[in-house]
């Protein structure tokens, strides 16, 4: 059964230096508050996993939390590049960042394999691209029935997955809806999971398009209203697009970035 915890407790208990950490949320329900808490608690040496590393990973990378990034698309959606990510890759600032790069289809299937208790997944992907030259985690596999050659990728099994959802009940059952991306797979693939939610309610009213994670499949739940800002939580908030645009200027310069993080993350009140 999931424990109800504070964000600070949840991160302290479940996210450890050197962990393989997945923060998922496909433009919707991105767990920004949890990422900020990981930064405040000074986690280091993390292998960050995420299909679409965007502003929250730019912040984690720029603050030196990450040693390695496993991803399929790294950008500021609708705006442009991630300057901290580029600075880390191109200039090793503040620390070098190893990359393991995939396609969305490959990453999604790696989570599916992890959630399914399988060591690998099979897909039609990567063929003819230069991606397989740069990782040993893309191989071919032959169909034992047709002889056709397809692509195999290994399961992703994060030490901990962190996602944000709309609601949980007091028993720790989690409910999310709208675009739910790969969050169910990412949680089920992980050894531990932390779910931040907009609110904790007595009863989870069924909602069309809902994904429910039973309490016994989740490690901990923390109530963090607006925990996905500047991303959004359908039914609770809208995307703060202006912030994504402003991030381009904030993140271009190392000092401006550090200063912004000081003001808005490091000195921020730790959420109860």
């Amino acid at each position, binding site marked *: 059964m999931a424990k109800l915890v504070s964000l600070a407790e949840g991160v302290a208990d479940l996210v450890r230096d050197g962990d393989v950490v997945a923060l998922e949320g496909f433009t*919707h329900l991105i767990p920004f508050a949890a990422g900020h808490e990981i930064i405040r608690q000074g986690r280091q040496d993390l292998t960050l996993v995420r299909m679409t590393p965007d502003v929250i990973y730019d912040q984690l990378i720029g603050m030196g939390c990450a040693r390695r990034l496993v991803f399929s698309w790294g*950008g500021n959606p609708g705006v442009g590049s991630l300057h901290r990510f580029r600075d880390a*890759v191109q200039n090793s600032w503040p620390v070098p960042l190893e990359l393991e790069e995939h396609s*969305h289809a490959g990453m*999604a*299937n790696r989570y599916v394999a992890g959630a399914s208790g399988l060591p690998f997944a099979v897909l039609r992907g990567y*063929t003819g691209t*230069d991606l397989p*030259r740069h990782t040993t985690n893309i191989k071919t596999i032959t169909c034992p029935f047709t002889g056709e050659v397809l692509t195999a990728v290994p399961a992703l099994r994060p030490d901990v997955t962190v996602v944000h959802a709309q609601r949980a009940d007091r028993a720790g059952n989690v409910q999310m809806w709208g675009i739910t991306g790969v969050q169910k797979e990412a949680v089920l693939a992980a050894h531990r999971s932390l779910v931040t939610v907009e609110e904790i309610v007595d009863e989870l009213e069924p909602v069309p398009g809902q994904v429910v994670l039973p309490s016994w499949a989740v490690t901990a739940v923390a109530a963090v209203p607006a925990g996905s800002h500047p991303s959004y939580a359908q039914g609770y908030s809208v995307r703060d697009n202006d912030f994504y645009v402003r991030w381009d200027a904030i993140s271009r310069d190392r000092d401006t970035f550090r200063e912004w993080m000081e003001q808005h993350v490091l000195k921020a009140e730790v959420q109860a």
Partner: protein
Amino acid sequence: MSREYTSDEMMTVAAARQLRDGSACFVGIGLPSTAANLARATHAPNLVLIYESGCLGAKPDRLPLSIGDGILADTADAVVSVPEVFNYWLQPGRIDVGFLGAAQLDRYGNINTTVIGGDYDDPKVRLPGAGGAPEIAASCGEVVVVVRQSLRTFIDRVDFVTSVGYGRGPGDRERLGLRGGGPRVVITDLGVLKPDPDTCELTLTRLHPGVTVEQARAATGWDLAVAGDLAAVDPPTEHELAVLRALEATKKVAAQ
């Protein structure tokens, strides 16, 4: 409404015209999304828009701010998981058209959105990477590429093959076992290119009004072949321009 228009507007209108009504289109964010929504708002009201966030049949009445904009889920026929959109919908070849952009494009329509210059581990420019593009380029019935044409983008051979067009030439897609048809057309701010049926090399087939072959050649990093029957693209109609500008306006409003 003025008939003056920008080269980007011409490009977007020309791209929108490539989408047939009733077809299913896998839409990337940015220019492809704008063009696809323009098509749906003009000649292709039954265009099925598919976004990699899992939204099947989205019908936004404004331009989405991201491929995961809430309006896509609110207006979709179905919202599915990200694994499902790739495994059940894209991979089996259910999607007619893949609509892609590019940072680099080469003479065989191969796309690079990964790294430019240097080598992979120490690139001059680190780009966002693959996203859904490799499998969109592999599995959609056909691919439409929308990209501004310049010596930076139109190069003889891409620094990194993120998504395969025709590989190194005829027969390569078959050899690789790619089941989709590959790039059928490339729309730029200067004109329209199509693969030569024999060589698979991208060939200039149309120019936008006021653009010359010399301009197109000067913006191409290889010896650009030009079709004998080089035609001119019709300029945007007043209706196309009005709808496009109205769509762009909704984006600014939504962003506030």
